[in-house]
């Protein structure tokens, strides 16, 4: 089930379980039938046994304190006898691969384990329909892959029908049977076959802000420049096969690989001065294990660094140390060559902005314009725009216009949409004129249009000399926008370099709790299939490498030497 933020996806899932219309108030017309039960006429406890809901936030869906109690909870509500419940707990845990977790406290589980417990708790009630509302939103890439593998197994056994709301389609698309897309306002945008959704009707979907699988994006982009890609491939394998079957494309890629980095970006950053730097930074929370060990990274002016790693790898700790939220040890964090330990929090936060994961946490004013005014003058933020100078007031209006929030200037920031809140919180940082910005998972819960607008803001900031570091679990975003990538694993920097270089090492990617983005896997499949070069992880990289087929005649003259081309490239990467 797809659709931009606020298109009613979650509302529809609540209808499947009977919470609407039985427990949530509102006007309800029409009819919903789940597993033969008319929802409006069936009691909730019957519907709960037919449709099981798993939600986005693992912590907000738990009702008890331990794994076994959590799984028992629904069965107890349905008045199952205790002996039956004991057996059902063990059964449900074995379905999700968590045997032995029975007596564990929920608070000690990782995010991925929590989602599996939530799934087990629902499965124990024996539903035929499983409804999952963005189950991977709070998970790191590896836990996401594991969860999806588990779901795929459940879908295959033929006993369960799955309904999934998901932004990250790349992992799912090859086993989705049908796609339902909603438009803002909850209108039906599309219903039918996934190949049709992402090939024939793709314009309607992407206009509405729906994320598309990367594979289809690549095929569409290649077709646009003239390559004749056959079929409507969705999965990694089908896409690789379709590209391999595209007349002339493999020869071109092999040839480019042989020539060396025909698509590699020149990196002029070495000429720029170092802006923000950590040297041998280690940190341990009081009474805790080491959160960071010997991390050294340098950002030059205008750099875009992505910080990735499994949950708990130390990403947020690093961000907190660099921005003065936590105090780093002396002589480990430097801003423009100055040790930040000597600087006040105020002075540091005037230079380095930190955009938190939840925009609401950073709101300090009653109005949208007040948020921006506060950044220019705290007094104006408290007492109103009257305390701003004319120049400052123009600046606020200018930013409101850019954000498209001029109409909502006097609205409460809490009443904005997810995307608006995010952009406002970033703008409230940028308007202070900071030279560096650290963002913690800025695109979490954002749809494609919102994420693209946010990234456009970042590119604009960089064009003006701003330095950006972004924590993200979205590997696709990392490949598309970041110049360099820092990968943390258990507090250590296990990789620092170009994103392409990292994703060309699948073992390291897996060991760091991350996952290769879909196009990286297409690239690897092509490499194995046809000996094309490695290191193509974005649509843009593919396009740069492939060029246009019009130039094919000259390319055909060069001898195709796949293996040699690939090894020449390895040296380059």
């Amino acid at each position, binding site marked *: 089930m797809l659709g931009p933020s606020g298109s009613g996806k979650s509302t529809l899932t*609540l209808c499947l379980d009977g919470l609407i219309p039985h427990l949530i108030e509102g006007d309800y017309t029409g009819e919903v039938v789940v597993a033969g039960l008319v929802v409006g006429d069936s*009691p*909730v*406890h019957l519907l*709960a*046994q037919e449709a*099981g*809901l798993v*939600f986005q936030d693992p*912590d*907000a*869906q*738990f*009702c*008890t*304190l*331990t794994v*076994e*109690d959590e799984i*028992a*909870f*629904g*069965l*107890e*509500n*349905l*008045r*199952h*006898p*205790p*002996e039956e419940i004991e057996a059902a707990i063990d059964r449900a845990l074995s379905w999700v691969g968590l*045997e*032995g*977790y*029975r*007596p*564990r*406290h929920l*608070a*000690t589980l990782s995010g991925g384990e929590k989602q599996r417990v939530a799934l087990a*708790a629902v499965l124990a*009630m024996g539903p035929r329909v499983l409804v999952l509302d963005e189950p991977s939103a709070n998970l790191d890439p590896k836990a996401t892959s594991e969860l999806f593998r588990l779901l795929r197994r459940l879908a295959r056994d033929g006993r369960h029908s799955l309904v999934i709301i998901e932004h990250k389609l790349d992992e799912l698309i090859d086993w989705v049977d049908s796609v339902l897309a909603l438009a803002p306002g909850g209108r039906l945008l599309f219903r039918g076959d996934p190949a049709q959704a992402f090939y024939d009707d793709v314009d309607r979907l992407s206009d509405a802000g729906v994320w598309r699988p990367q594979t289809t994006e690549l095929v569409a982009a290649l077709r646009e420049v003239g390559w004749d890609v056959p079929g409507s491939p969705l999965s990694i394998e089908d896409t690789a096969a379709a590209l391999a079957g595209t007349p002339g494309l493999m020869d071109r890629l092999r040839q480019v690989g042989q020539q060396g980095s025909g698509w590699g970006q020149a990196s002029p950053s070495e000429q720029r001065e170092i802006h923000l730097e950590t040297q041998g930074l280690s940190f341990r929370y009081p009474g805790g294990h080491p959160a960071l060990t010997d991390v050294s990274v340098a950002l030059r002016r205008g750099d875009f660094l992505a910080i990735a790693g499994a949950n708990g790898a130390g990403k947020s700790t690093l961000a907190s140390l660099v921005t003065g*939220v936590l105090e780093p040890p002396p002589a480990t964090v430097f801003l423009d060559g100055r040790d930040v330990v000597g600087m006040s929090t*105020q002075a540091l*936060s*005037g230079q380095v*902005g930190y955009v*938190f994961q*939840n925009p*609401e*946490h*950073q*709101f*300090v004013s009653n109005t949208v314009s007040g948020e921006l005014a*506060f950044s220019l003058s*705290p007094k104006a933020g408290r007492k109103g725009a009257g305390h701003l100078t004319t120049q400052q007031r123009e600046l606020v209006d200018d930013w409101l216009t850019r954000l498209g929030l001029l109409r909502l200037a006097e609205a409460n920031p*809490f009443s904005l949409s997810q995307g608006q809140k995010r952009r406002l919180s970033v703008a*409230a*940082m940028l308007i*202070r004129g900071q030279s560096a910005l650290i963002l913690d998972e800025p695109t979490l819960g954002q749809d494609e249009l919102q994420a693209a607008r946010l990234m456009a803001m970042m590119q604009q900031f960089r064009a003006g000399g701003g330095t950006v570091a972004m924590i993200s679990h979205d590997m696709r975003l990392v490949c598309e926008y970041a110049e360099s990538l820092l990968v943390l694993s258990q507090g250590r920097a296990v990789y620092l370099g170009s994103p392409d270089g990292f994703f060309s090492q699948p073992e390291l990617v897996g060991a760091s709790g991350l996952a290769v983005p879909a196009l990286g896997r297409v690239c690897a499949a092509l490499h194995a299939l046809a000996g094309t070069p490695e290191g193509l992880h974005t649509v843009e990289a593919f396009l740069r490498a492939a060029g246009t087929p019009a130039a094919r005649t000259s390319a055909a003259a060069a001898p195709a030497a796949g293996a040699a081309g690939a090894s020449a490239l390895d040296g380059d990467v």
Partner: protein
Amino acid sequence: MPGPATERSATDGPATDRSAAHPPPACSAAGPPARGITPQSHLARRNPTIKLLAVILIALALTFIFDPFTPAVLFLLTFLCGLLLGGLSVRALLRPLWVFVLAGVAILLANIFFNKENAVSPALVYIGPVKITGPALWAAGTLWVRLLCFALLSIVFVKTTEPQRLILSLVHQVRLNYRVAYGTMVGYRMLPAFQRDYQTIRAAQRVRGVGERTGFLHLWSRMRRYTIPLLAGAVRKAGRTAVAMDARAFGALPNRTYRERMVVRPSDWLFLAAAVAVTAAVVVGLWYAGITRFTIE
């Protein structure tokens, strides 16, 4: 020794030893000690409601006593009880008391300045212009030791009671409405998250250049700034949890079954009787010795 206080809720059939039915799994080494398996210490095995009743009775007795020595003896006994029967460390028992030790200073000052006996009693000593009287010190000492005793009773209770067992016991023994009981438990579960959010919001606002000014005048604006995001998050989260509970048929039927049922065993009654008897013996003994005084003569 009495058996575990929990057993299968089957109406008939013998009590099964849960630790035998479910041997600790291999992976539990990675996590904290397991719940649901028989609690180890004597106090932890007691039925929570009965234990709560014992605490309430002792606390009630304390409110009628107005001398520092009787609560001191009860404090000592509670301490020993926590140490020997509760299996708690000295550190675990005494560390949370520091706030209440500090509160003693406030109690002392309040009595030195405001005790109504001060005007009619002779001064023991003058510190500058401040007159310090016997009744003021007596009252301060009494209130302080009583407070410490209350605090220690609570500490021993909290540290030997699993919240979920208490909730279940209140449902089973006191017939608390199960909807209310589970609501309370979910609220309890959210407290740590609430605390984390508070820390995050403070940090998030500090990097926006919000000064952490501590003056009284700024208290209001600071409170408002923290409260709104905190409450917005909490309300949303509570709403989501409520939906998740409803989705699993919580409250859809008038009653529900329980995987484990809390029962009151003879050993629990014995514990309550012992607690009451010891308290009574201390009070009566000290009263004979002329030490215990009562608030109501």
